[in-house]
């Protein structure tokens, strides 16, 4: 039986006073744990939803080590390599997912079209299905490790006054993240499965390094990349690093950066840099990521049923619409479309100029009439993936050298 949970919702609301309300515990990151999401979920589902918001690295660590502390875990596919293999999660039965058959091809088969380049690194389909022996892979089966939800392609943002638009605008290149014109005003995202690739794309774009497989670097390649970054750091290229959107926005508000790694929602919060900081559609392509929701190994009984209701809610439309307003795509776009205005849909998914001012998740205007999304429509942007956020084979090594580098950046060490 498929559980949409509508009858149970009514039952819960009718519970007599004094009986504890049912509660679902969700652990995740700022990508998806917005107060608007929680409020909407509680309204639609009729039970309490508790959010525990953590930064990427801490979220992954505690999800692996404390699976008893949450029922649903929201993060990105790349970190299944950590959390799944710690044994912290349980399989999701796709027969209990109402929209499973209508989900987009990107996650279920690996690309937006049969001919689209898949990108280096680990495409989410490679971590989707549970395979014999407890591995994850792309061979379809009934059980999955994470329900694919939001996704996007990321790049960096830049100050056009520094990099020049004017008469002959140049196509932005990842090389700008290491450009002398921005020396002292460059910041990177501090997450080794993400920021390391921004830096690697930059190092390849400047021509200084070349990776045999940028999605699975060797120790020698990681060392070469870190040596290059350390050299730039000593020359004073980097002004800082950030771990969440708020910190990225703060660097912009303080006027400290001319170019930095960026996440989509931050473009709605540029403060004094509004109009002075542009999203790049890099010549080399994007760094892509795919988020999702998983079930804790410990979820059972009523909690497990609530968790499935919540997963189904994710794909039913309203969640996808809220996510779209901060620039994220959903795996069931047609359902989200029913909850968006035609102007919103045209701007966020079709790459059309905004017909009017558009609100973000909180209702505040984040897009001005006439603006166009960098990179264009959904298919256009998703067809240009250079690399996926990836937990590489040598991840453990990469994390430790990356952390030491970031500590030096943040300490402003000589």
């Amino acid at each position, binding site marked *: 039986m498929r559980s949409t949970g509508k009858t149970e919702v009514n039952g819960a609301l009718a519970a007599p006073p004094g009986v504890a309300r049912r509660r679902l515990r969700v652990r995740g990151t700022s990508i998806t744990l917005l107060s608007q999401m929680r409020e909407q979920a509680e309204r639609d589902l009729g039970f309490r939803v508790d959010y525990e918001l953590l930064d990427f690295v801490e979220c992954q660590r505690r999800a692996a080590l404390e699976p008893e502390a949450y029922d649903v875990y929201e993060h990105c596919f790349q970190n299944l390599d950590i959390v799944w293999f710690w044994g912290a999660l349980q399989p999701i039965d796709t027969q209990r997912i109402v929209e499973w058959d209508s989900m987009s091809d990107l996650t279920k088969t690996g690309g937006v079209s049969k001919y689209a380049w898949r990108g280096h690194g680990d495409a989410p389909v490679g971590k989707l299905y549970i395979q014999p022996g407890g591995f994850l892979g792309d061979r379809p089966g009934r059980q999955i490790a994470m329900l694919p939800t939001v996704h996007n392609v990321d790049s960096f943002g830049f100050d056009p006054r520094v990099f020049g638009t004017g008469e002959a605008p140049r196509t932005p290149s990842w090389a700008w993240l290491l450009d002398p014109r921005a020396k002292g005003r460059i910041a990177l995202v501090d997450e080794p499965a993400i920021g390391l690739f921004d830096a690697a794309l930059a190092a390849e774009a400047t021509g200084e390094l070349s990776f045999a497989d940028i999605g699975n670097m060797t120790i020698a390649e990681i060392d070469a990349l870190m040596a290059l970054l350390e050299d730039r750091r000593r020359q004073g290229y980097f002004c800082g690093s950030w771990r969440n959107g708020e910190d990225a926005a703060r660097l912009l508000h303080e006027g400290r950066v001319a170019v930095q790694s960026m996440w989509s929602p931050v473009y709605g919060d540029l403060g004094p840099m509004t109009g002075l900081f542009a999203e790049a559609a890099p010549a080399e392509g994007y760094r892509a990521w795919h988020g999702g929701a998983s079930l804790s190994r410990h979820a059972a009984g009523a909690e497990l049923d609530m968790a499935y209701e919540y997963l189904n809610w994710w794909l039913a439309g309203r969640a996808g619409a809220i996510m779209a307003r901060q620039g994220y795509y959903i795996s069931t776009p047609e359902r989200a479309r029913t909850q968006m205005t035609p102007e919103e849909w045209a701007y966020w998914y079709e790459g059309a100029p905004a017909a009017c001012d558009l609100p973000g998740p909180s209702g505040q205007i984040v897009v001005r009439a006439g603006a166009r999304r960098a990179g264009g429509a959904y298919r256009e942007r998703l067809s240009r993936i250079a690399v996926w956020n990836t937990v590489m084979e*040598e991840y453990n090594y990469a994390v430790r050298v990356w952390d030491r580098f970031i500590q030096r950046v943040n300490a402003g060490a000589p």
Partner: protein
Amino acid sequence: MIRTANPLAQEPRYELITQVLRENIAEGRLPPGLVLLEGPIAALMQTSRAPVQSALRRLQAEGLIHRFEGRGFLVGPPGAEVAPLRRDIRDFALEIPAAVDDALQVRGTWRHVYDQVEEEVATCQVFGEYRIVETELADYLGVSRTVVRDVLARLQERGLIQKNPSSHWIAGPLTARTLREKFELRAIVEPAALRLAAPHIRYAAVEAIRNRIGADPDLTWEALEDALMDECIAQAPNTTLVEMIRNNRLLLSAVNRALTGLGLPPDDIALDQYRTLFHLIARHPIDSAAEYLRDHLHIMARKNLARMKIVAVISETRKLAPYLTPQ
């Protein structure tokens, strides 16, 4: 300069053990038909089982002892119709020359501290590259530098440390590549050794361990790996091959112990594979077991690579032994 006065301390242990057993057989202290088992002899000599195994194989080659239906060897030349005499070897007045005993003891000194150091050195590599300073290790352990050198030599032999160009002892970093290469080598040589070993495999022991899978909750993944090695692969009549396989496995098992010690979850799925493997070895043509072993090792390689990734969530702040200096 501190140097041990006993020249025998430089001899390989299996040589010393062979010598002791050979003389005791020759002088009749160990009677014909007595069942010789690795474990009790190792305990008596205060050594590991590996050198005892080598010693017994040498004595077999010399025709002083021979194999029979059961576990172990019988004293006496092959073909001698003697009934197996199962008694504790300590019941016989075995003579161990003082010099040999002393030599084994000297070697024993480093053994007392070795396991601890190995664990600390294997663990630190997970976090990166570390230098080991001889004098600091000696102070930490409260032993002489001679003993420290024995320990370091053993660590080097096991592939846990190496000397860098400036002659410093370096541990780590432990990489996915190292693990992948070790498993590739295993998948090449171990199925071949298993085929060679077929006529000599200790089938009763294989059946016994197979029956414990699922029934004995204390049975570890490591015990199964050891059984595969000791009861099956190590029986191959090619000592060079067996030695190479043993050495290749040393780092892998040290790393596995270190990772488990850091709190990584156990792998329950692997148990089923060992059950199938031991079943094939015990009941079916050896080719099927060899093919299954090759497959099993590919899967174990993937599992170990996955384990190397998840270590990343364990923070470096845990206290490492003071003689390890991050590089």
